[in-house]
């Protein structure tokens, strides 16, 4: 144990269990940044609960030296909602995957997001089922050949960003597994956001779906295929920052900053409070491998909205009901209408 007066370090958040992920798995990076962020946030190990469902990513709680519950498939968000509703003062984090959160747990995903409990949800999206050995997931690309799609996936994939905003989410961010520094900062922003913070990690599975995100992580390509969102800054991307996004009416178009007719002043300025623009960004979902004419995939914080949380609203209702004191057991047993038999 550590002295609570001193700020804890990432090491203090490391449990005595050895992670059992495959070598090269993107999950290691997420675990490390989570522990870094918890230390940066000045959290105490006893006030944190890490909750998960089932899948490779859902082993996360075992490796963090806080309280942790590894639940059942798809239900991490429901369990976390119960913890947060009954104990609003705890810092509750959820580790979940594309199968856990978006397939078997899809219903809980929608409803947790709209209720806006103050949860920090890390969605490890590797576009594959890893723990069951390589079946396609609801985020797998069309055409992906897996053991259950030998002729290629025909399911249209879920767009996590659009789903989250559509369900009434108040915080959505996307980050690449290998961008540790950015991830650490996003985790901290997520923790500071009062509401359900959804962080989608593009996480490489080196065994069953290696290179799924190459188009966005490959050193040669990523400058042209991705765009990093920064509050108040123009949407600029490309090698040497030579491209930008401009809005032509409601249509986002890629413009060449090298040409004399376009300057940075003409570009879309990122505003994470702008719900309409966040929704447009969520639709930047092109596959760079499928066409030359694509919008870059956004990373960073898409959207942040201040809205009341479920647990605060419930707590307020209870406080209002108890304005003249908490009910006693006698009052509870008696109810509102009684009579006496002599």
């Amino acid at each position, binding site marked *: *144990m*550590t002295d*609570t007066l001193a700020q804890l370090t990432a090491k203090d958040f490391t*449990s005595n*269990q050895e992670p059992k992920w495959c070598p090269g798995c993107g999950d290691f990076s997420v675990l490390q940044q989570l522990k870094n962020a918890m230390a940066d946030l000045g959290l105490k190990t*006893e*006030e*944190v*609960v*890490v*909750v*998960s469902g*089932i899948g490779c990513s859902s082993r996360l*709680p*075992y490796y*963090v*030296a*806080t*309280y*942790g*519950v*590894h*639940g*059942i498939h798809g*239900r991490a968000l*429901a*369990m*976390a*909602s*119960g*913890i*947060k*509703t*009954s*104990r609003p*003062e*705890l810092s509750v984090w959820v580790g979940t995957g594309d199968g856990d959160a978006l397939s078997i747990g899809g*219903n*809980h995903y929608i*409803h947790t997001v709209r209720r806006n409990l103050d949860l920090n949800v890390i969605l490890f999206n590797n576009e594959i089922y890893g723990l069951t050995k390589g079946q396609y997931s609801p985020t797998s690309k069309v055409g992906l050949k897996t053991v259950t799609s030998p002729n290629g996936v025909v399911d249209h994939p879920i767009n996590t960003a659009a789903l989250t905003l559509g369900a009434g989410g108040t915080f959505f961010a996307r980050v690449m597994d290998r961008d540790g520094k950015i991830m650490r900062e996003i985790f901290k922003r997520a923790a500071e956001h009062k509401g359900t913070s959804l962080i989608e990690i593009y996480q490489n599975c080196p065994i069953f779906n290696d290179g799924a995100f190459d188009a966005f992580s490959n050193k040669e390509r990523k400058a042209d295929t991705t765009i990093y969102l920064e509050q108040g800054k123009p949407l600029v991307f490309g090698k040497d920052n030579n491209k930008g996004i401009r809005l032509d009416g409601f249509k986002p178009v890629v413009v060449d900053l090298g040409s004399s007719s376009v300057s940075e002043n003409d570009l879309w300025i990122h505003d994470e409070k702008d719900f309409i623009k966040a929704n447009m960004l969520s639709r930047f979902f092109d596959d760079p491998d499928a066409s030359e004419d694509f919008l870059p995939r956004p990373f960073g914080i898409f959207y942040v909205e201040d809205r009341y949380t479920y647990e605060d609203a*419930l707590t307020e*209702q*209870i406080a*209002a*009901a*108890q304005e003249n004191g*908490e*009910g*006693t*057991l*006698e009052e*509870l*047993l*008696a*109810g509102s*209408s*009684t*009579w*006496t*038999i002599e």
Partner: protein
Amino acid sequence: MSDTTILNRDDMVTAKTSVSVLFAGDSGDGMQLTGTQFANTVAVYGSDLNTFPNFPSEIRPPAGTVSGVSGFQLQFGTTGVYTPGAKFDVMIAMNAAALKANLKNLHHGGIIITDTDGFDAKNLNLSGYGEANNPLEDGTLKDYTVFKIPVVSLTRKALAETGLSTKIIDRCKNMFVLGVLYWLYSLPLETTIKTLKTKFRKKLDIAEANIKAVQAGYNFGDETEMFSQHGRFSVAPADKKPGVYRRVTGNEASAIGLAAAAKKAGLKLFLGSYPITPATEILQTLAGLKKWGVKTFQAEDEIAGVLTSIGAAYGGALAATNTSGPGLALKTEGMGLAVILEVPLVIINVMRGGPSTGLPTKPEQSDLLMAMYGRHGEAPMPVIAAKSPVDCFYAAYEAAKIAVEYMTPVICLTDGSLALSSEPMLIPSPDELPSVTPVFSPARNADDPAYLPYKRDERGVRQWAIPGTKGLEHRIGGLEKQHETGNVSHDPENHALMTKLRAEKVARVADIIPDLTIDNGPEKGDVLVLGWGSTYGAIKKAVEQVLEGGCSVAHAHLRYINPFPKNLREIMSNYKKVLIPENNCGQLLSMIRDKFLFEPVGFSKVQGLPFNEMEIEAKITDILKEL
């Protein structure tokens, strides 16, 4: 406040020990309210009482038709009231459809009070009788005592001077009928007048009109010659234990039982739930108990209902979820998680007819084996059952006590007939309620030995280690755990050990539950009727009747089904035959046969209806003949 004089003519008064009444009318006729008023009056008067609402599952079915008939059944009396009554002695039929829908359940020779204004051509056609076949006129009812009262006309006359619209006046017709019934059973009007004044305290003219209507109905009884041939009836108050009473339905009682256990334990109650018939009122009642700090979470589905509760239990709340059969099926994986996590959780299952959607509004006892065995893996949990609406309070309370003190999920079984039925409940004093004692792991220091979340006490129970406590940080989950440390373990010997430890813990609950007692009848004899759950009232009455006939028959009722009381085998061995009536195809029978290698006599009823005492009495008689 009365401006009408209540006459007290010297009518012939016949004493009765119990009477069963059905109020039936169109969904819009206010029959639930009328029945409730009558129930409150007889309750305050001191009668024993049992009520049951019988309304269509559709919300606004076509007016005037049989499918639109809403009923409220009750039995009140001096002794022997354990059910709403198998058949009614008296039926109030506000229209032709109400008569048509319920006549088959009226005792031969019973009393029918009708509103003749509800038997016009339109109502006769809608009811299916047809305007040419008015049952009030064509001899259909020759075997019954029929009082034909033009209720709407008389109500309009009585309220003519109020200045209210005809529409509002017509809504008071149910109060007129209620007044007639109060006269007929020599009951006071005060309780209803008081309630009407409170209910309509912001609409004094409406309160006044309703009060006038009930008084007009009462006076009609006094003045009319209609009843002179039969006279009035009186039902003496029951010899009830002195004290303060309230009226509760089974679902209200279950909800209050949970909230009371939380208060007694010093815990916060959390209910994760999804609306489902006939269990929803538990969620509704608890949602209204915020003054007592109760948190309810109306989840997106049944699965989230149980999982939010497991989360709350992990966080240190007294957590519960409530449902009915289809929902219990959906919760089973979550319940298995609660078994392996070893967290307290109460699951109240209000049984209804199945499988699938089955009979949503009708009772059945067919989820017993699902409660016992309906989980993957070896996942035992205590199962207890409530026997009456009031007993739902004590069953829920005990379920919570066992859950908290044994760190286990507990299933509490009630059913549709208990859930909506009501009875007077003697309000217990908080001191009379058994203690509910959670054992939390205390905070630990840096130099203490490593924390062992699955270390057990002599009963095999682990402590509750809740987040926020310093030094207890630990990780648990649905994967098999290593003994004591709780770390993930796939070791074969360890799995065998943990399976055994979990089962032994549940079995040890038998150490704190009371022995099974004989409810009525001899300690040794010819036949033991062994019941569980809502069959209590019908068995109680049937056994009372055969005992009066001098037969050697006893009744015992199981509250604890897993584990069984320790003396169950011994009790059964004291009788030549054991009869088990169940609203299923023999599920307790199968458990008894399995556990004791002993063959009781089963008696099944799966019609979506509770047993009535005549059926059980007849079965007992048959068995006695064969001995």
